[in-house]
């Protein structure tokens, strides 16, 4: 599953990463867990609660179930304008 990253996270990890996970009904909580396993460099960020996920450009919480084909993005803290 493709995940878009931005800012510092995008610079450190990659602006687009491919999580080794079937996107078929996977929840955000499962994705968070899979990302932490696949990119240890993200583990502390993911655990801190400072990151938020968006699916199809809407912020979602951990229980959200991702459907195949949806656009998934992971945000670190915004800088603002």
């Amino acid at each position, binding site marked *: 599953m493709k995940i*878009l990253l*931005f*800012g*510092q996270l*995008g*610079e450190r990890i990659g602006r687009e990463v491919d999580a080794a996970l079937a996107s078929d009904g996977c929840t955000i909580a499962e994705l968070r867990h899979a990302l932490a396993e696949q990119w240890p460099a993200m583990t502390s960020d993911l655990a801190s609660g400072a990151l938020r996920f*968006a699916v199809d*450009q809407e912020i979602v919480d951990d229980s959200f179930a991702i459907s195949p084909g949806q656009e998934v*993005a992971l*945000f*670190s*803290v*915004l*800088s*603002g*304008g």
Partner: protein
Amino acid sequence: MPDRELASFMARLSGAGAVVSFVGIARGRDKEGEIVRGLFLDHYPGMTEHSLETIAAAALDRFDIDDALVVHRCGAVAPGEPIVIAAAASAHRRAAFEAADYLMDRLKTEAMFWKREDGVDGSRWIEPTEADRADLARWSDPCPE
């Protein structure tokens, strides 16, 4: 360019008596006074624009203004270059001043950008300051909606 944005914003008005605009310019020094060679504003196409529209719509809801404008740069911005123009138009000047002030306070914390300052000794990603958060909190009193 902010002057052209202001001209086109003014051209679409009818009947307004007051236009207040804010232009933010990339500074050549960071908060510690160190030289900044440039800024990079990362954004999420679609969601970032939506965040700007949401802020403009909130100003239109909250103040007695006829129109609001928010135009924001993304990507690389050199010191001295404009980053943002925010403007509000109203019949009387007080509402336009308040709305422009409000637009900027919200943009500084809520606009969906990830901003990197590139200095002489490296780069750092920045977060809203405590002062930015305090500015935003000014508007959380019961509002005239």
